[in-house]
């Protein structure tokens, strides 16, 4: 049973279908159309730095909103009876199984001009453009990824022993104190994995901004989609920068998480 051999197909698979493609991206990013070494692709990629910054900004705001909305929900869920917990988990998971594009399309339907919300608002004499701006993009992101924040928070918080919370109360902590000194420190692993699961896809997603945003709201994923088909080199450079940026973010986040966990 102490065999290592069964992992060989996987190792080969990962080398061929994960490592080789990444090396190819690196190669294309560092060459020009003729295949000779060049940093031209990176210079062109730098031209999209405003889109990069916007993507990070949108991802940051969306993640923050998700966290703020999901935290109380995760806590409420974790303090219920077992059967209620299971039921609520199911309720939260069902929309995740809906196709990603259909969920975005639902918001296009809702927010469009003369759509249900627009019509309702105009009854009250409010006329605003609901779709085609950054707010709509962020709303779409929050909607897409909220379950990915709620579930890890809930999972971690459901492991917090209720007696600990009661003990803190008995020892004189008020509700805020209990939250700050007991629940929050113990929920940090959930916060970290929630942020990971929301930030990475929001920063790199494409289509959400195309569907809900205006022409000035496109994100870095959209740029990759747009230029990769015609210019492999610049597309590769942008993809590479995106991947490295996200890996650095994850390393920092996990480092931060470890420190916090030790301090607590």
């Amino acid at each position: 049973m102490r065999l290592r051999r069964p992992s060989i197909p996987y190792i080969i698979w990962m080398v061929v279908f994960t490592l080789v493609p990444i090396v190819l991206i690196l190669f294309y990013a560092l060459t020009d159309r003729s295949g000779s070494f060049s940093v031209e692709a990176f210079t062109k990629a730098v031209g999209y730095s405003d889109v990069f910054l916007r993507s990070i900004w949108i991802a940051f705001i969306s993640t923050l909103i998700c966290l703020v909305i999901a935290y109380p929900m995760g806590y409420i869920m974790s303090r219920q009876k077992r059967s209620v917990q299971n039921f609520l988990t199911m309720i939260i998971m069902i929309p995740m199984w809906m196709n990603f594009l259909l969920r975005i399309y639902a918001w296009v339907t809702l927010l469009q001009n003369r759509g249900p919300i627009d019509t309702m608002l105009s009854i009250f004499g409010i006329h605003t453009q609901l779709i085609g701006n950054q707010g709509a993009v962020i709303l779409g992101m929050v909607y897409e990824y909220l379950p990915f924040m709620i579930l890890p928070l809930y999972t971690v918080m459901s492991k917090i022993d209720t007696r600990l919370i009661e003990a803190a109360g008995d020892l004189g902590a008020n509700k805020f104190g209990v939250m700050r000194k007991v629940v929050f420190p113990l929920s940090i692993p959930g916060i970290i994995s929630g942020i990971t699961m929301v930030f990475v896809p929001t920063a790199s997603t494409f289509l959400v901004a195309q569907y809900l945003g205006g022409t000035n709201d496109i994100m870095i994923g959209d740029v990759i989609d747009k230029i990769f088909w015609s210019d492999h080199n610049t597309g590769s450079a942008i993809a590479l920068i995106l991947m490295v940026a996200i890996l650095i973010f994850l390393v920092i986040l996990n480092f931060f998480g470890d420190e916090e966990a030790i301090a607590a």
Partner: protein
Amino acid sequence: MKKLSKLYTALIIFFMYMPIIVLVIFSFNDGKTTVWKGFTLKWYADLFRDSQIMSALWNTLLVAVLASAIATVIGTMAAIGINNFSGKKRLLLQNMSNISILSPDVVTGVSLMLMFTIAGVAFHFQMGFWTVLLAHITFCTPFVVLSVLPRIRHMDYSLYEAALDLGCNQWQAFRKVVVHELMPGIFTGFLMSFTYSLDDFVITYFTRGASFQTLSIQIYTMTHQRISPKINALSALMFVVIIVLMVIINVKDRKAEKRMGE
């Protein structure tokens, strides 16, 4: 539940379900816009008559079943192997799986597309069903590895040895003891692979070539044109299927829990 908690939960559920419910309502609307023109089932009839959508549905299921089955086999074997590595090598293998899960879909998609394009020129093939299948196996397998690994760590090796002592050959002992012990992890891995494969748009989009259609790609084409209320009908049907599946799984779990309790 306290009142405030109840209200909050209700608000979250409203936020998550309202858009889907609106699509479901409009799937019965006898008109192409979001103005109510009366009840109809014609979009559903249109949907079932649309041979493109039906073949896309078939392709999606075929890829999902094959990819998750193959990923489950490779991933389970990998987990058994990885568990027997130690130290840095093991860490390297585990991190390889983690990186492949965490790297953005767009990057996975374009990098695979690059490779398939180059390989296609070298070996004279075009992207299509096979490249999509290979890509799906690639992103599914790490999920299987990650869900099986913790199970192996808690497995008792003496059980396997006992099976050998009691007259099983290696294969029988593997099948009857190891696979049996790992089954919950294997099943979770399979289920995750299956759902991710069904739901994938980005990676399929980059590796499908010119003509291979899956449901996600079909939905992309339809939503991009934003004209056909058939999308609403499709959403409604998918929503119902998902709810039914979830209820079945939950009831099964509940029964299993009860049996464990007894």
